[in-house]
Structures are given as structure tokens and as C-alpha cells.
């Protein structure tokens, strides 16, 4: 799988594979500055404010982190983390993982893992469907805990200009609405938009495999008519929803979570031009999907109990 770095790869596959060489992080460099970057002109930080320009509230985030996130991470899911060192300590990086659950518990657990285990804890920006920006309640709460709508321009600004960690779930709602019988089979990775975004920002992609979320929030059926009435993204039947009401969305089963951070895929070698090459983008996206799928299968095969790991 390793291709020499200095020699231009001839085929798209070879070029795509060149990135999966798993180079250690100390070699990684921040992208070179460009004339049109203007990142020195970003608004300064006003210390009196407790809400960022993205709508993220320190207070709300700390409150959720110390109560719900802490409880689920430490006692309910008993999360085990491997390879946290693959998350860069500085510069932008795109965290890509598999995705499941009606109100998916995997995304906040990955963000919590970076805060808990990383030697230099950094905030993670979760990208969520635009739908949530238009739904009352979600629209108010999600930005407060660090969610941003999954617009390519938002991802680019966070990665390139603000050099932040951004988490994307390329399966999107195809992942969260899939039924329990399809568990751990990754859906299509969209159209590879996340790869193009990382290439444009010259930011590395960190693939992540999560096991446990499928059993924590199984979905038995989707009810289309109720979805229309409530105007939700989908209307799932889970062990606790809808008969326990909206709070039933949080009725997770105590499955054991394992999160494996994989060696980062370096995108700066393709440069910005890589993003224009649809074939390359598709190949890299498929490659990352296959990698996560392989690790998910391996982790599922090696676990002895759904509940105790």
C-alpha cells in the first residue's frame, strides 16, 4: 500500500493509496500561507464574550460536558479509545467516522474522547444536517454545544482559516436511519465532499471506527406518516422512542463503546487541484470507507460481549 512520496503516481488508485502510508505526525506541516487567505484578518477574540462567532457557548458546553457527556462516556458506554495520538495537536484536521443511532451517540463520544484522552485537548466542531438549523429547539441547542451546519464553506473556514478539528459523518442520514438488521454495514460516503473539503484546506483526514453505537441505539422501524406530521428528519421506533416521548431519544442501551482513531490520510500532497479531480476524490472517499469498514468488522469480530466488550 505504500508508494514512494517523491515519485508522481501514475494512476488514480496509486495516487490515492500514496496517502495511506501512515506517516507519523511529527512530519505533518501546516498548509503554506496563501496571499488570499486573510486569516490574519479574522475577527479577534473578545474576552468578555462566552459565545463564539459560531454560536458555541462555553457555559452550555461545559454544563453538558460535566453532566450528560461525562456520565455516558465514563459509566454508561465505558468508552475505550485507541490511537488518540493520530489526532493532530495543532492545525486543522477532519475527523471521519461511521455513524448510527436515531439521536447518534457516536459523534459526541468522539468529541468527548478528544477532550478526555488527547494530551492537548481541543474543541471538536460537529457538522450536522442543515435540517437542525431549521427545527425549533435543535436550532437553539446544537450550535451551543459546538455543532455547525455541514456546509462546505463552513468546513473550509474551520479547517483552513481557523485551523480547528472538524468532525464529519459522510454517511449522513443514510447512516442514522438504517435499521438494526443492517448494523455495522457502512452506507455510501456521500459524493466524497468531505475529501474535497480536506484537499481544498490541505488538512489531514483522520478516519475513525466506532463500535457499540449500533447496539446502544437500535432502530427497529421507520414510520413515514409520523415523520411527515412531526416534520422531523425521520421518525424511528427504538426501545424507548416514541413511547417515552422526546426524552426517550436519549434512552440509550448500555453497550460497550470502542473508538479507534486510525493513522491520518495526508491530503496536502494532492494540493488544491486534487479537489477538482472527481475521480481522485471518489477513489479516496471509497478508500477511507473501506478502511473504516475493515476496522469496524475486525473490532466487532474480536469483541466477546456487546455489553462488556
Amino acid at each position, binding site marked *: 500500500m505504500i508508494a514512494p512520496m517523491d515519485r508522481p503516481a501514475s494512476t488514480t488508485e496509486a495516487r490515492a493509496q500514496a496517502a495511506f502510508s501512515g506517516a507519523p505526525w511529527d512530519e505533518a506541516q501546516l498548509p503554506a500561507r496563501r496571499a488570499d487567505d486573510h486569516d490574519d484578518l479574522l475577527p479577534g477574540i473578545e474576552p468578555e464574550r462566552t459565545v463564539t*462567532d459560531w454560536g458555541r457557548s462555553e457555559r452550555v458546553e461545559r454544563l453538558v460536558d460535566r453532566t450528560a457527556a461525562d456520565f455516558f462516556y465514563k459509566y454508561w458506554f465505558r468508552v475505550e479509545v485507541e490511537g488518540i495520538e493520530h489526532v493532530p495537536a495543532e492545525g486543522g484536521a477532519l475527523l471521519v467516522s461511521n455513524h448510527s443511532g436515531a439521536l447518534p451517540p457516536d459523534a459526541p463520544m468522539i468529541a468527548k474522547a478528544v477532550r478526555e484522552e488527547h494530551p492537548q485537548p481541543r474543541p471538536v466542531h460537529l457538522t450536522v444536517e442543515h*435540517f437542525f438549523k431549521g427545527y425549533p429547539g435543535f*436550532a*437553539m441547542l446544537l450550535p451551543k454545544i459546538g455543532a455547525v451546519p455541514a456546509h*462546505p464553506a463552513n468546513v473550509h473556514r474551520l479547517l483552513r482559516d481557523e485551523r480547528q478539528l472538524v468532525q464529519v459523518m459522510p454517511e449522513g442520514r443514510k447512516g442514522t436511519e438504517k435499521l438494526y438488521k443492517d448494523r455495522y454495514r457502512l452506507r455510501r460516503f456521500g459524493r466524497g465532499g468531505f475529501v474535497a473539503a480536506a484537499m481544498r484546506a490541505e488538512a489531514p483526514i483522520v478516519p475513525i471506527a466506532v463500535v457499540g453505537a449500533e447496539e446502544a441505539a437500535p432502530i427497529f422501524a421507520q414510520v413515514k406518516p409520523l415523520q411527515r406530521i412531526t416534520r422531523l428528519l425521520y421518525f424511528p421506533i427504538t426501545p424507548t422512542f416514541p413511547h417515552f416521548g422526546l426524552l426517550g431519544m436519549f434512552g440509550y442501551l448500555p453497550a460497550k463503546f470502542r473508538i479507534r482513531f486510525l493513522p491520518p490520510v495526508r491530503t496536502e500532497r494532492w494540493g488544491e487541484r486534487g479537489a477538482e479531480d472527481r475521480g481522485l476524490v471518489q477513489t479516496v472517499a471509497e478508500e477511507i470507507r473501506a478502511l473504516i469498514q475493515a476496522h469496524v468488522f475486525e473490532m466487532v469480530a474480536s469483541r466477546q460481549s456487546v455489553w462488556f466488550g
Partner: protein
Amino acid sequence: MSAAEPRGPSRRILLTGLSTYWGGRLAQELEKDPAYEVIVGVDSNDPTRELERTEFVRISTQHSLIRRIVQAAEIDTVIDARLVVDSAFTSPRSAHENNVIGTMNIVTACAGADSPVRKFVFKSSAHYYGCERDDPAYFTEDMERPHPPATPAERDIVEAEASVRDFAERNRDKTVTILRFANGLGPELKTSHSQLLSLPVVPTILGFDPRYQFIHEDDIVGCLEHAVRNHVPGIYNGAADGVLALSEVIGLLGKPMAPILPPWGTGLAAGPLNRLGLRLPVEMLSQLRYGRGLDNRKLKATGYRYRYTTRETVINFAEHLRMRPLLRSARQPYQYEREVEEFLRWSPSVRRSGTDAGKAWRPSPRQVAELQRVLAQLDAADPKLSTGRRPDGGHASPVAEYDELEAAELVALLPSLGRGDLEALYQHEFAGRRRRPVLEEIDRLLVPTRTADRR
């Protein structure tokens, strides 16, 4: 980084929308700079601010006769600050007349190779981007709105900007700047947002806490002035640093937030509130739901520095709200009165007093012609007089036309003369009719220069 104007700096300015808040403020700023020889302001309403030398011409909302003004006054810079962006203060029909037809007429008036106009600054609005669920968190200048405009006001702005961009395409020899401003906020600016935030309890939509970015009223004027003084072709966003959550804005104002508007059927609920006097235009309702942010770095890269951040803008507005009950009775609003303004600009009886020594006084064309004739004759009579040197004892021969001028009329003309001419006139007057007021006035005008000489 701001480059110098390649086609020469602006001298003769036409400002549309003189009676809008920023139009008046901009005219006041430009008046202070003697580099701008002529400032003509047009609008369909009376000016709302006191102006010194800006000439006001009332025209219809369609601005159909503007070409004649541009040609006659040899305007080189047109600042179009006339766009109506707040649909609460106008009807859709008159907004369309002003925004679409007006822009079309102004752009046509400036077009063509024979037009004296070299520079065109267009004040647009962030409503160009709209406000929708699928928006990015920050709009940059090259972004298009995700869906076609849904409200008449937004449609008009998109159409107006399209005609300006078409004008820029066809007239590549002219500098065209488009400024898209975020919601303005400030002590004197009256918008539907400032009205909403002035309420004792601020109504919001239940379950939403949108992101808000404002621009201070001073920065709106500052951005426009920046575009006039510098060479900044292209499209720029004008918005202060920092995007605040609406809850943060209301917190800074020290008011309670009342989520009384329902998330569904918001438009229906806004109807009765409209009747109660609370105007909630459609554009504002969508901002209260989704919010909007602009990337302001492109304008900053041209050298403009904002005086206020969004947070400081809100704090400034909050201070004003606290002071307003005290100020309300104290200040008389300015009332434009044509006769008074014309008297102040043209009457020979107006003298420059000490208090408005900094203000420019301009003689009328008739007076200038008269004075030039007099000076030419003085020159012909004695060439030494106009050189500025004090003539050694030589008496100038009396000039009949000069002596026919009334003393008061002469006094009014004196401030527009140079030092050399003043001294020549002093000699002539001293040798001739020795009118006291004239001699005293010349003396008074010469004193500063004389003391400077001694030093």
C-alpha cells in the same frame, strides 16, 4: 494596501439618497474635505441633516433626469446610497420604483465613454444573500444565495445589483464598487431591527437563537467614505467583526427575551402584532429564525478598519437606549427649509463669522464674474498689484466698476480672495474711497498672515 485611483482622485461628487441617514452623514464628512469641489445631493425628500455646501436637488424616485445633472455638473464620482432595504418603511411598489427602476436610470445616466463619471459606488445590502436554512455560516462576496429570492424586497435588491454589475461589465474604464452591508445599528439609525430591540421585552421565535451581525452607523459611513477615497473596485461585504447570538445581543441590552412567536405559522402570528404597531417584515422574521453572518475580511484587506465590533455596536446602542428618555426633549430635529438654505449659500449678506470660519463659503457665479472683471482691470492698471508684493507707494488708478460695488457686497466677496489680491485691494481702497468696513475687513483677514510673516 489601498491603491491610488488610477483615473485621478474624485473631485465632483453626486450623492443619491441624500436624505437617508448615511447619505446625509456621508455628505457631512465629504464637505469637510476641500478636495471635493462640488457635492450635489439628490433625493425625493428633504435632507434630514444640516449641510454646509452640499447642493440639494429634489428629483423623483425614478431618478430619470439624473443624466442632465451628471452632464451639467461634470460629475466624476457617483455614490448611490439610495437603496431601500427595510420593507417595514415602504410599500413594495415604491420600493420597486426606487430600487429597480431608480438604479437602472442612474446606471444609464453614468454609462458610456462620453460620460464624465469615472467612479461608481453602490450601497447594497446583505439581503442580497437572503436568509435561509441552507446558508453557510459566513457569506463571502463570491457566493450566490442557495435559493432564488422569495420576498419582493430581496428580489429588488438582487435585480438592482444585477444592473450595477452589468454596468460594470460594459464600462470597464470606470471603477465600480458594490458594498453589501449587514444590518445597521446605532443611536440615530431607524430600522425595523432597532425598533425591535428598543422594545422593553424583545420578542423572538420559540426554539431559535439566531446568529446576528451588525454594523455600526459610523462604520457604514466610514466604509462608503473609504470606497470614495480609495481605489477599491469589486464587491465587498460591510459587517462588523464578531457574530453574536440573539440571546447575547438581548443580554447586552439588559432586557428579557420573550419567545412569543411560534416556530410554525410565524407569519400568521406576526399579522396581529403588525396591527399592534410592531412591524415585523418578512426579511426580519427569517433573520430571527436562521440568522446571518458575513465574511468581512475582503474589505479589511483593502485597508479599512472597523471602529466598532458587533458587540461594541450593541453596547453603544444599549447606552443610547438608556440615554434616550433624557435626550428626547432636548434636541430639536433638523428641518430643511429651502429659502434658509439658499440664503445661507448664495446671499452676499452672509459673512464668515468666527464660529464657522472652517466652513467653506462660496461666492455666487455672478459675484465671481464681477470680481474677476475687477481684478483683471486692476491688473491692467498696475501689474505690480496682483503679484502679492506690497507696492512701493504707487497709487493704483481708480476703477469705476469696483467703486460702484456696495461696501457690504465687497465685504462678502473678500474671504474668497488670496493674500496678494487682498493687499492690492487694500492699497486701492486706501487711495480711493477709504470705506471703513472694507478696510477693517481686509485688515482682519490679513492679520493672521501678517503675524505669520513676522515669525
